[in-house]
């Protein structure tokens, strides 16, 4: 806090030269219009901040501090328009002199020019409320109670805080809406958990009792305490991906050896000869038209021969020679029996060959199942 002791105003606004001694107390100026009352206030603002808010800012057009602050007789000599103020800084217990002229409003002569003094004066210059215009005061007085905080914010340039408050309120409202949804979700999850565990009230003891009784059935150790990573399924085997079955090298080598021996046996001359014989007999069998008729035809002839009793066919009444027919059918039957015998003979020869082939197939490595 600073107190103004005295002020000297020269060639400033409508004042040629004026010295006022405030004695560090409240001070009021009164007088008719145009006698320079506002000039004293402007001088005070100018010496403390380097600016006159009434002459600058939005809506002031071509009015400027440099052109309009000096007295009309000194407009071409702004260095002569100056203000000197003596203030006491209570916190530092220092009395300071500040001098500023309109030619160089951005720089002031401060005595003593101590760092702590400069810091306090910068602080004062950053307080826009040190100078309130009549309009600002009236606007505040006339403001309705609901709007007064906005007027105070405008006076103190607190619109930034208003923006922040509005933004924070919007964020808070959005979070409240999200909270309702999340709380409902939590409630649903708790109800599901209660139902799954079969407990009435969700307490730590109830959860332990319900979970541990089921864990005991699975031979799992009881859970005694919850931590951030505790799971009621702790200790349960988790089925992983099926691992390919390992093949013992010794077994594999034995299989390969057996397959090799089997192949060598098949490739041998004896087997080749046996195959050639079997093939020749099979071809001979296939060439005989009766061979395809097989067993059913053999049965047919056997029954037929027993029916040849009269001299007339029982189906078409055609006469036949009984002995000649019986002999003919008998020959066919014997031929069929001969075919059957040959087939059985070929099958007998084929059996060891098939067995050898089957043995090799078992040892062979299937491409889909290495």
């Amino acid at each position: 806090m600073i107190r103004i002791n005295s002020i000297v105003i020269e060639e400033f606004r409508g004042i040629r030269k004026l010295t006022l001694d405030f004695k560090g107390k409240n001070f009021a100026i009164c007088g008719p219009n145009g006698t320079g009352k506002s000039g004293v206030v402007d001088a005070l603002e100018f010496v403390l901040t380097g600016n006159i808010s009434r002459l600058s800012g939005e809506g002031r057009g071509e009015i400027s501090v440099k052109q309009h602050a000096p007295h009309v007789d000194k407009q071409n000599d702004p260095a002569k328009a100056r203000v000197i103020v003596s203030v006491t800084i209570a916190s530092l217990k220092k009395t300071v002199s500040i001098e500023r002229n309109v030619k160089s409003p951005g720089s002031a002569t401060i005595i003593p020019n101590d760092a702590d003094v400069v810091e306090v004066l910068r602080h004062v210059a950053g307080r826009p409320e040190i100078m309130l215009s009549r309009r600002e005061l009236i606007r505040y007085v006339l403001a309705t109670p609901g709007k007064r905080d906005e007027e105070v914010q405008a006076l103190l340039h607190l619109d930034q805080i208003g923006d922040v408050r509005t933004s924070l309120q919007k964020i808070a409202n959005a979070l409240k809406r999200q909270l309702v949804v999340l709380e409902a979700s939590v409630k649903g999850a708790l109800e599901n958990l209660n139902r799954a565990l079969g407990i009435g009230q969700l307490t730590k003891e109830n959860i332990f009792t319900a979970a541990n009784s089921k864990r005991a059935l699975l031979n799992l150790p009881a859970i005694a305490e919850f931590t951030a990573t505790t799971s009621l399924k702790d200790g349960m085997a988790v089925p992983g991906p099926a691992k390919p079955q390992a093949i013992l090298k010794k077994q594999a080598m034995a299989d390969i050896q057996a397959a090799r021996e089997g192949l060598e046996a098949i490739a041998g001359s004896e087997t080749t000869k046996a195959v050639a014989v079997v093939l020749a007999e099979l071809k001979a069998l296939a060439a005989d038209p009766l061979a395809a008729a097989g067993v059913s035809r053999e049965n047919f002839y056997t029954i037929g021969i027993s029916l040849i009793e009269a001299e007339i066919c029982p189906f078409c009444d055609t006469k036949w020679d009984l002995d000649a027919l019986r002999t003919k059918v008998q020959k066919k039957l014997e031929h069929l029996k001969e075919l059957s015998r040959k087939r059985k003979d070929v099958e007998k020869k084929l059996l060891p060959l098939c067995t050898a082939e089957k043995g090799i197939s078992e040892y062979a490595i299937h491409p889909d199942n290495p």
Partner: protein
Amino acid sequence: MDSPTKSTAVGDVPTQVFEKFLEAITAAGVAPEMVGRIRKALLEDHDFTEDGLESAIFGEGVADD
């Protein structure tokens, strides 16, 4: 003496209010990283928008709903 600008003046009213606010949320136990982000948004970047403050509070990875 240079005339300080309104928003960067040492100890101007909004800055003092924001400092008090940051002190209060620090005392309330808000994480120091979050306080640092809010301080940067308010006092360095002068970002008072909803998006800016939301990023400061929740970090850059704030989820859009």
